[in-house]
Structure formats: C-alpha cells, structure tokens
C-alpha cells in the first residue's frame, strides 16, 4: 500500500479494485520461458535449414544447423523442465493429449523433435547410421516449423491481453524470429560460401518478424501498448533496431565479409532473444495493469449494447 494514498476506487477512465490486476501475472520464470521460446524457434528453423543443407550438399551448414537444432531442443527442454513447479513430474506432459492446450500439443512436438534432431545430430557428428540420421533429420525438419511457431499459440491461448489479442501476428513474429535466429546462428558459425541460405533465411525471417510485430502495434490498439511502452517497449525497440542493423549488414556485406556476416548473424541471434523477452514482458505488463483487461472489455460491451439490446 502506498503511504498516504487512500485506495478509494479511482474514477478516472476506468474502475478497478484498488488498481489491482484482474488477471494473475504468469508465473513463468525468466529467463527460462523466453529462452525456451527462443531456443524452440531457433532449433525448429535450424532443423529446416539442416535438411535444406543436406539436400543441397552444404555439409558445414548442415552440421551447424543439426547441432543447433539438437542443442536448442535439448537446452529448451531443460529450460522448460526447469520452469516446472514439480520438475520430477515432467513426464506428466505426455499423460494426455489435448488439442486445446498448446503446451500439450507442444510437448508432442518437442518430444519427437528432440529425439529426431538429437538422433540426426548424433548421426551427423559420429557418422554412424547415416541413412537413419537423414531420416531423423527429415522428421526433425517436419516438426521444426511447428516447434518454432506453436509457442505463439502457447502465449496467445491465454487471457493475457497483449498476447491473446496478438494471436494472429504472434506466430509470424515467433516464426520469423526463429528463422532469423537459425539463419543468424549459421551466419555466425558457417563459412560464407555455405551460408547463403542462412543469410536469406535470416533476412526473410527478419522481414516477417518486423512486419508482424509492427502490425500488432498498428492493429491491436490499447492492448498493444505494452509493446511500445516500458521495459517491453524498450526491448522490442532494441530488438527491432538490432534486426534492422543486422539485416542492413547482411544485405551490404553478408556475402563478402566473414566478419560482417558473423557479426550480423550474432546480432540476429541476440535480437531474436531480445524479441522473446520483449514479447514475454509485454504480456506480463498487460496482465499487471487492469486497464488492459477492463477497457477493451468495456468497449466490447459498449459496442455490443449499441448493436443490440443488452445481453447481460
């Protein structure tokens, strides 16, 4: 309680219960969850990249991408399990299969993806069972894109205004960001001559991500405010600026300079990380302030009562 401030219900703009949030702030921990989102996105897109590299004969790119897919999945799983209140019960994630739960669906994506990408990476590194390794890699590539984007459903399928109301754009933000990260990581670690697809993937991902993120702000009104304001706003701006810089660098010097490519790649990766933190924090902010819950709902009610007789 703020000293000296009598918590009478404020009359301005909207009413609330002592300014308290209506929604519960998500209990998901940082950095576990934003990191998981990043890792999932990066790993999922890397699997695609790896399979492309394998198909087109880019062994360096393939190896890095396979490692990124497997490593990202493994690290992501660790982050996810670490976030659980009862980590020893992580297997309960596979107890039921619920299409209504992106986390359930995601578990059935993450589990095979982890296994397949791990197998593919192991095969790639050890040279053992190459055919099975390729098969696994193909499987991982199939599960990769859903892995990179389902996390948007994870956020969107909540009552958190900044997430839910952005459910049309978030998959593209996350998908684009994942592609950008996967491409960026490869740019960092793969020689220039094999990194062409990575650069293109990063660049294309960056474009998708920026367009999608920008359209949240443009189209979602008040609930998009947290993406512009405060800590998440800063994070989003930093991420966008970094993405823009990396993209410019990629276009200008990505093909020629290993250093520029590596720097741009690292910047992409970092920007992707920051984007997830930005989105995460935007959701937190929108859950904390009852304004984002009450005002849109009030507007909705007003619109409804204008268009018809009151329902409630």
């Amino acid at each position, binding site marked *: 309680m703020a000293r000296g401030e009598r918590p009478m219900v404020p009359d301005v703009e909207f009413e609330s219960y002592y300014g308290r949030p209506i929604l519960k702030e998500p209990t998901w921990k940082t950095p576990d969850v934003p990191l998981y989102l990043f890792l999932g996105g990066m790993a999922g897109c890397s699997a695609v990249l790896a399979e492309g590299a394998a198909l087109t004969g880019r062994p360096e790119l393939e190896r890095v991408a396979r490692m990124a897919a497997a490593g990202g999945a493994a690290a992501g799983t660790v982050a996810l399990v670490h976030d659980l209140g009862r980590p020893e019960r992580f297997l309960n994630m596979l*107890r*039921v*299969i*619920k*299409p*209504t739960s992106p986390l359930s669906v995601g578990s059935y994506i993450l589990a095979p993806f982890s296994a397949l990408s791990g197998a593919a990476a192991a095969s790639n590194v050890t040279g053992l069972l190459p055919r099975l390794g390729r098969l696994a890699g193909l499987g991982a590539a199939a599960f990769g894109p859903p892995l990179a984007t389902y996390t948007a459903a994870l956020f969107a399928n909540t009552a958190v205004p900044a997430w839910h109301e952005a459910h049309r754009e978030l998959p593209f933000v996350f998908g684009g960001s994942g592609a950008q990260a996967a491409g960026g990581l490869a740019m960092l670690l793969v020689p220039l001559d094999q990194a062409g697809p990575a650069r293109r993937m990063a660049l294309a991902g960056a474009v998708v991500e920026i367009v999608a993120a920008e359209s949240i702000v443009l189209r979602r009104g008040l609930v998009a405010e947290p993406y512009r304001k405060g800590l998440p706003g800063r994070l989003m701006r930093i991420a966008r600026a970094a993405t823009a810089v990396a993209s410019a660098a990629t276009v200008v010097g990505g093909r020629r300079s290993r250093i520029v490519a590596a720097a741009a790649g690292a910047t992409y990766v970092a920007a992707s990380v920051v984007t997830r933190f930005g989105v995460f924090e935007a959701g937190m902010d929108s859950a904390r302030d009852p304004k984002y819950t009450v005002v849109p709902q009030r507007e909705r009610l007003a619109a409804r009562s204008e268009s018809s007789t009151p329902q409630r």
Partner: protein
Amino acid sequence: MALSPLEWPVLRQLRGPDRLGRGKASMSHRSETLEPRTVEADKVVDSVCPFCAVGCAQRVFVKDGKITQIEGNPASPVSRGRLCPKGSASKQLVTSPTRVTKVRYRRPHGTEWEDLDLDTAMDMIADRVVKTRKQFWEWEADGKRTRRTLGIASLGGATLDNEENYLMKKLYTAMGAIQIENQARI
C-alpha cells in the same frame, strides 16, 4: 502411478467419450476414489462454539483421538449450521501447535520460565491458597462480621462452563474469597 499402461489417459481418451481429455479420461485414481475425510471419523461429537454467546452448534469429527474437522450443525435452530470466521477456525483453535500443554513456572524474581510437574504445581498452589487465605483472613470490618479473606482474587468465567463457574464460586465462597469476577464486569 503404478497403473496398467492401458490406463494411460491418452488411451482412455481414444477409447471413451472424453476425446479432448478434459474430464473423465484425465481423472486420476485419487480423484475417482476421493472421499471427504469426515466419513472416516470414528465419532461425531455435538458441541457448541466457544467464541461469542450466540451459541452456534458444532459437530466435531474425531478420528484416532484427533480432531479432523469442526463444522456447524444444521440442526440448530440458533445457527442452522453456520459459523462465523472465528467459529470456522475452531479446529485451528483446538489443534494449534502454539497451545501450551505443559505447566510453566516462573519463580519469584525469575527471568525465565521453568518446567514444573502438574501434581507439584497443584500442591504448591493449594499451599499458597491456604497460606494467603490465612494471612489475609478478616473476621470483621468496622465491627461487622465479614468472615472473609481479601488476599485472594479470581478473574474469569465467561469462557467457561456453567458447572465450572459453579464449582469456582462454591469453592471461593467457602474459602471466604469474595473478589471473584469475570468478563461480565469488563
């Protein structure tokens, strides 16, 4: 969960009507067999709330000599089974871990509590009553017979039973102690 793999809820989902796994299929064994703990009570004892004077009826559930639940008795024409927050906290009142269950003794000028055997404590108290009673005994005051002691006083009774108040007043009166009071004066 040492259950048959056939009881994997995913399979139950596929087998039964709960395809989305949101109800029947996801029930655990515990949920299937859940019971209120009161059904296991060895006895249910009729009681009355110890806080205010409305006199709400309580039902006390006992299992293995321990109280497992206290709740209102709907049969009461006074309370109809309802309890206020204090009455609802009765179980916590009687099972409180901070309840003092051993005699504590503070000797004159002492700085700490000490242990004391209950029987010894009773003897010591009886000795002191006898001594103080005699020390302050008064046959008369201003020439009028009083037959009393002003050396011993007592405060309390409103939270106690009628039978207890009766014994207290009876014993004190026979002792000649008159400064016997309770919350009704406060």
